[in-house]
């Protein structure tokens, strides 16, 4: 091995989701200085929400992971899975060993409604429900009760639609996907026949993207409708921001009309409704809603409570009103925005610390939005280190530290072992993979010996 005259800068990227990978890609592309990246994830498996968030009936989107796999093949990249900042290693320890630390940890918690009855059994966060059906080990035991007939989903973004679709997809379809086995079984036994999607404001304020509204028409046996279709006829002011998407959304919703009253499986959009109380004796039985009207002031359309109320029966209430970031021990955090304060990705008041993705800008945008976001941060980082020499620990010292501190650490070869086992389990039935849903199962698969030619040790 030829020795390089100058040691590369060594950066720790915390989080192996899209933002982490796009930041890694930009760092590895730098030629002056050369950068080596050690990527950490609290789970044994990488890919973040691409693995645990994207709906299983959207397999094309998941193919972005091929990009991540390619980045992971770079010689200056190492992966350390099942290592959690806080639980296993500290911020100070990272800063002592790396030239810089880049947090790309996403937003793994959820915004709450803050209403009575939110804690009742049968009231769930979409973030937990989505993680459950995607086999996330932290949520595998969620066991949502799907024995009722009506689910109410609160929220007007694509996550609300994902949840609604998963509750109403015909059984045969799910069995071909990488939906976790426990969820396939639960959905097969489900009695849910109607999903009502509530939005606080009107159809023009909904965050849905048009393809997600249109694709509902392709679901076999599903009757889609809009309660109060007259709302779709409101004219849009020409200065409305993002008007093309909104016009297309309205057109797509208008095609559904009010729906058929005798549809066997029904999805209904109900606008101008805010939840004020979830009711029930020991579990969710009803939800009381405030009826809103809209007021536009200074370009912003607000929901104003008219004072009128309506109560509908509900067996399941799932809130999909946004993800929310969680603070990292020792790292600055802004509680109001649930993000790490930063300027173009450089942590305010930090020490050689940077952020990318949702923990930087809040939980918005699509997967690709993180790419430009990460590039902006890496430009800041590289500018800060122009002409600087690396003061990082050596790669071997770092591996030794991590292997002794975290004996259950999963490296890249270990992840490939998990990947191989999951895809192997899926093959006989034509599924892309069958997910392992416990940490123990993942660790066992990671240790599984493979033919020597397939193993790529990273150090």
């Amino acid at each position, binding site marked *: 091995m030829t020795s390089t005259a100058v040691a590369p800068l060594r950066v720790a990227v915390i989080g192996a989701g899209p933002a982490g990978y796009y930041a890694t890609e930009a760092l590895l592309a730098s030629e002056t200085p050369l950068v080596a990246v050690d990527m950490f994830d609290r789970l044994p498996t990488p890919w973040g929400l691409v693995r645990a968030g994207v709906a299983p009936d959207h397999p094309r989107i998941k193919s*972005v992971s*091929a990009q991540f796999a390619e980045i992971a093949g770079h010689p200056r990249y190492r992966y350390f899975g099942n290592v959690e900042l806080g639980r296993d290693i500290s911020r100070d320890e990272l800063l002592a060993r790396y030239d810089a630390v880049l947090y790309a940890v996403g937003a793994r918690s959820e915004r709450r409604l803050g209403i009575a009855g939110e804690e009742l059994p049968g009231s769930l966060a979409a973030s937990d429900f989505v993680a459950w059906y995607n086999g996330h080990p932290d949520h595998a035991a969620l066991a949502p009760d799907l024995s009722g007939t009506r689910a109410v989903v609160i929220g007007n973004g694509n996550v609300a639609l994902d949840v609604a679709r998963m509750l109403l997809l015909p059984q045969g379809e799910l069995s071909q996907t990488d939906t976790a086995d426990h969820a396939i079984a639960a959905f097969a036994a489900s009695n849910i026949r109607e999903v009502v999607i509530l939005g606080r404001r009107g159809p023009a304020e909904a965050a849905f993207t048009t393809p997600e509204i249109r694709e509902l028409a392709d679901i076999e046996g599903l009757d889609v409708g809009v309660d109060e279709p007259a709302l779709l006829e409101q004219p849009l002011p020409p200065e409305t921001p993002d008007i093309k998407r909104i016009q*297309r959304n309205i057109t797509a919703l208008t095609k559904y009309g009010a729906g058929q009253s005798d549809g066997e499986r029904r999805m209904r959009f109900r606008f101008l409704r805010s939840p004020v109380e979830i009711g029930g004796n020991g579990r969710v039985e009803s939800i009381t809603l405030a009826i809103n009207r809209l007021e536009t002031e200074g370009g912003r359309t607000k929901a104003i409570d008219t004072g009128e109320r309506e109560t509908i029966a509900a067996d399941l209430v799932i809130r999909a009103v946004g993800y929310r970031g969680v603070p990292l021990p020792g790292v600055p955090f802004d509680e109001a925005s649930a993000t790490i304060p930063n300027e173009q990705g450089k942590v305010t008041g930090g020490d050689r610390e940077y952020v990318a993705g949702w923990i930087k800008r809040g939980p918005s945008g699509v997967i*690709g939005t993180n790419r*430009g976001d990460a590039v902006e941060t890496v430009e800041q980082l590289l500018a800060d280190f122009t002409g600087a020499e690396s003061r990082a620990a050596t790669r071997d010292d770092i591996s030794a530290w991590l292997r002794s501190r975290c004996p259950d650490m999963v490296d890249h070869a270990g992840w490939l072992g998990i990947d191989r086992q999951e895809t192997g389990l899926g093959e006989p039935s034509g599924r892309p993979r069958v997910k392992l849903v416990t940490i123990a199962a993942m660790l066992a698969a990671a240790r599984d010996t493979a033919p020597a030619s397939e193993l790529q040790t990273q150090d």
Partner: protein
Amino acid sequence: MPYVVTEACIGVLDRACTKVCPVDCLYEGGRMMYINADECVDCGACEPVCPMEAIYYEDDLPDEMQVYREAGIAFFEKIGSPGGAKKAGKLTHDAGPAAMRAE
């Protein structure tokens, strides 16, 4: 059902789209960008960032822009599915209206 780059890109090649594409499926031709329909994952990140508003979701292509969908297919006939624009680099050919306009 992918996205399609249309007329307003010709001669501009702003490339804001390439910075947000999660799968690197926007390729640079001689005079405009082309989306590889097989590689596009329909994520929609490119459409709002184009300063020329040149990108359309395939279903939303106005009649007069349909020719760009065919151009998008013809462009890749020579090179197939390279698996990422970074690998392919700047290409010098065009297809459709961008290939036909003389300057």
